[in-house]
């Protein structure tokens, strides 16, 4: 019969020689192999102390962006909610009142903005859909919780820290995406 692959190997059935039947050389060889593993590099990363760098295209938890003066970018246009294939985003719009110019960049803003992190599939379509550079996916991921309702993230949990009041936290939250906002 013709062999299906060229990798077929005839099994050797010849009786074992005396040294083979002693097993000791084989055991010794095996022990040397295990011993050599002592000096191998460990692939494990000590997680909480050391964190693996994310790839630049990593898509983590959403963040709502502010501009340089700390005003919210979002205008509650709803394009992200439309783009979302998992229907994780809900929002309610409101009109900016006089005197709130330092809070919201444009005349309309999101009074309520919620993302259900249990529904979210982190596809990043909301980020692509947003015309105002208001939402993007950061390098953090949603932490574990005890209750399902805790996973519906409200606006205060999604908003980026204020760039003027807390510049360090702002930078950290912005991460590598900061150069992205300059492109737009």
């Amino acid at each position, binding site marked *: 019969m013709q062999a299906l692959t060229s990798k077929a190997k005839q099994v050797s059935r010849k009786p074992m020689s005396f040294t083979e039947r002693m097993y000791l050389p084989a055991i010794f060889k095996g*022990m040397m192999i295990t011993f050599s593993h002592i000096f191998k590099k460990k692939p494990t990363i000590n997680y909480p102390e050391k964190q693996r760098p994310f790839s630049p295209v990593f898509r983590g938890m959403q963040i709502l962006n502010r501009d340089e003066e700390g005003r919210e970018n979002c205008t509650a246009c709803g394009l992200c909610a439309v783009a979302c294939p998992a229907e994780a985003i809900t929002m309610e719009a409101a009109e900016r009142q006089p005197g709130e110019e330092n809070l919201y960049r444009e005349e309309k803003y999101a009074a309520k903005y919620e993302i259900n992190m249990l529904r979210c599939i982190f596809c990043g379509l909301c980020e692509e859909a947003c015309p105002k550079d208001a939402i993007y996916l950061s390098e953090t991921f949603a932490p574990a919780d005890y209750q399902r309702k805790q996973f519906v993230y409200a606006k205060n949990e999604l908003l980026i820290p204020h760039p003027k009041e807390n510049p360090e936290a702002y930078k950290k939250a912005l991460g590598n995406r900061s150069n992205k906002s300059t492109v737009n």
Partner: protein
Amino acid sequence: MLLAIDLGLVIEKLILIVVVISASLVIAMYTTFAERKVAAILQDRRGPNRAGPFGLLQPLADGLKLFFKEEIIPNFSNKFLFILGPALAMLTAMMTSAIIPWGNKLELFGREISLQITDVNVGVLYVFGVVSLGVYGIMIGSWASNNKFSLMGGLRAASQIISYELAMGISMIALLMVTGTLSLKEMVVQQQAGYWNIVKQPLGFLIFLICAFAECNRTPFDLPEAENELIGGYHTEYSSMKLGFFLFAEYINMFVSSVIMATLFFGGYDIPFFNEATLSPNIAAILGIVALMAKVVFFIFLFMWVRWTIPRFRYDQLMHLGWRILIPLALFNMLATGASILYFQ
């Protein structure tokens, strides 16, 4: 004053007993830690490193956990024997350490303190007696659990000990023929003066080593507890610290048999290529203890190293190795030793 009791001797021995027992407990504790660490390193993992610096408090955490676990005694078990099992396993594991010469003499407060709890002149026989008692803890515990897997484990332990005790005993006889003494202390003194016994009895040592693995129920001879076929074997029904005692007894056994092997074949507290007589006796004694411990650490590592290299035997393979290979080999070794002693006389 025939019955005058030397109070100093009593205190000295009492302290020695406490030190030896607590030391072997601590060493056994850290052997459990070392086992996990060595296993991890040999498998390219990191091992426990959360509790304390480098995970050094891990054995304490494990011990505490075992104490806090619920203690379950099965309804249909024999309660007295169920408790006796692990207690006996622990007791016999500790008993062997009584006759081991841990070092030479210390000179303190004008007294000569021998670092051996008692120098029994039939030391080797005592070791054999106690080691074969060790299986009773396993057998009684497994029988009292009233569980078929436990019973199976106990049966395996009993037949394994019987099979390998024989080969071990015969390999010992050859060693006794060479040394001409049953006292462990005297064997060490002989080895200090001449060569280590491993040079005179390499085959005997190999047989002894294999049998020691079998007597300690260590891989590849861990059939009595075989996790994947017997669900833990003899300790299936045990929980809490009673389980801890069984597991702990295994590690103490490992420690003690390492010490015995070091003493019998590797010169005990003898420091190789070095004459201890040039040092003051106290320093020599302490260095001797260090030397013995270094040898013991090597053997304990060997136990672990083999565990993570060789898979478990099948039951018939175990019996085949014991009865049809090791015993004839040990007999041959005894014969060859006798013949060479006669020849060189």
